[in-house]
């Protein structure tokens, strides 16, 4: 029995149904990545898993309990979320913002323990923002800011961490930074990570478990090596491509098919891609 799962959930905003009868298991200690074309429901699924969105039918289970029925702070000590949209309050410093991640561990009489202090320092060191602690969040670059938000989610100290498109709006080296950081968190501490990613190649490289969605249903799930094929990519994204081995990691690498006029030796290549 995995800690986090969705059972036959129907997800909708008002009357607009995004997914029906969707079931997903998040394997414990995995780095699960959800991929799919725009509007396939991947962010919606993540919102449901993190109890931001209440399913119209079905249920989301955390440690065997329906997530909506659990006390909010208890969930927040088990499951963290890095949402796409977050607002840094005016004039807040990095250290203060990261410190706010300790909220679920605090109370009226326990406002700022030594443990809080230690965890915040550690989270900032881990994400490489420790030297920014006294800076204002408004002054930071996009990449730094994203790392600060991740540090805040880390300070929450949850065994499960959900990230909604953590690499959006970042340039390429910051994207890789963030993903490397996620991979470290997963490998060194055995945390369970669930991320929604746009880039299929990033997903294939970093995920231990991949969930491919289209139109609100799971098309395939499993280790990237087992499921990423040209056929799957065409089915999910409607994109013709070849899948080769990533020269760095040996994971699948998706190379989109070129327009016919520019393809090298197109006849045999497309033939090969189709055959695979």
């Amino acid at each position, binding site marked *: 029995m995995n800690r986090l799962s969705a059972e036959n959930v129907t997800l909708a*905003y*008002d009357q607009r149904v995004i997914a029906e009868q969707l079931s997903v298991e998040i394997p414990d200690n995995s780095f699960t990545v959800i991929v799919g074309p725009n509007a396939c429901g991947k962010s919606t699924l993540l919102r449901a898993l*993190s*109890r*931001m969105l209440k399913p119209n039918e079905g249920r989301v289970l955390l440690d065997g309990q329906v997530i909506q029925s659990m006390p*909010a*702070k*208890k*969930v*927040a*000590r088990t*499951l*963290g*979320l*890095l*949402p*796409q*949209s*977050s*607002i*840094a*309050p*005016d*004039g*807040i*410093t990095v*250290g*203060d*913002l990261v410190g*706010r*991640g300790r*909220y*679920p561990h*605090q109370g*009226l*009489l*326990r*406002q*700022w*323990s*030594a443990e*809080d*202090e230690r965890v915040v320092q550690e989270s900032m060191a881990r994400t490489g923002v420790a030297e920014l602690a*006294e800076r204002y969040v408004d002054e930071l670059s996009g990449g730094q800011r994203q790392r600060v938000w991740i540090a*805040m*989610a880390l300070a*929450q100290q949850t065994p499960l961490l959900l990230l909604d498109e953590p690499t959006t709006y970042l340039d390429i080296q910051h994207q890789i930074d963030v993903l490397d950081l996620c991979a470290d968190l997963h490998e060194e501490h055995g945390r369970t990570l669930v991320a929604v990613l746009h880039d299929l190649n990033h997903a294939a490289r970093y995920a231990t478990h991949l969930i491919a969605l289209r139109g609100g249903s799971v098309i395939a799930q499993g280790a990237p090596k087992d499921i990423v094929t040209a056929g799957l990519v065409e089915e999910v994204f409607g994109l013709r491509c070849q899948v080769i081995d990533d020269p760095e990691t040996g994971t699948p690498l998706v190379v989109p098919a070129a327009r016919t006029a520019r393809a090298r030796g197109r006849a045999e290549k497309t033939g090969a891609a189709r055959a695979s």
Partner: protein
Amino acid sequence: MKTNRAVRTPGGLSFRLDVRAFTVVVLLLAVALAASVVLIGTGDFPMSAADVLRTLVGEGDAGQELIVNELRLPRVLVGLLVGASLGLGGALFQSVSRNPLGSPDVLGLTQGATAGALTVIVLFSGTANQVALGALVGGLVTGFAIYVLAWKRGVHGYRLVLVGIGVAAIVTAVNGYLLTKSDIVDAARAVVWMTGSLSGRDWDQVWPLLALCAVLVPLVLAHSGALRMMEMGDDVSYALGVRVERVRLLLMLSAVLLTASATAAAGPVSFVALTAPQLARRLTRAPGPNLVAAMCMGAALLVGADWVSQRAFGADQLPVGVVTGVLGGVYLLWLLVTERRAGRI
């Protein structure tokens, strides 16, 4: 720059103290109390601060006792309580709407309370207490209407502000209609009430306000941690374990009650709710709702403005609301200019 101090006890209790914010609160309290003492001493029968203090602890002569305890003390207490309620209510609204202009003046709450009071004045020529009751009912009904109309899978900051602007316009039209319906005596009384005034306030206004503050202030402060989290957006605060909609409903209800009862007691004193939180925030230089500082600032501002109006125009010539309006208006323009320079709002 780092002004936070953590205070920990061996028993595992820990508290956080922002030194600068704490200093500001202490200073504001001192200002409010000092202004109160001076204000009690001001009037047709002037008293020195020492006399006032002596009378307050029960050492004055009979004449001083009468003037202080029966006439001026209740008025000043109403001023302090109204200012504190408006400051706290304004800070709550601004924090919930995530907008520095999201004050009860802009959202139509004070206009709603005004409509209630005008109804009583113009249609029933009611007594002062009935007018206060009318204002309370008007404010609560308007607050409820704004919340319901802004509700759409949750209450969103800008939608709250914009719906409030719409409601304010409708209620303002109703108020204008009531004014045109009235005879000139009622109209003059209505206009004085609409400006906000402390004149003639006595212990009857003090007790209900004090009781309400005694309940609501601790309740609100207990939720200030959650409110701090909510500044980072609904998603983040939800992820941190805040029951966003429940906290928001509770805090908005408290803010409406505070504002409506303050308005019932002293009339719609303009701009205190808008400016006190902003001034407090700039003094403490701390992020977050700054609830306690806003409360103290509101009290200091109102009592200070009352003193200015009495000194500048003579006793009870110009209601305190005119002075807070002028102070607030000038401050507001300055705020907009600086926000613009900082590229905010």
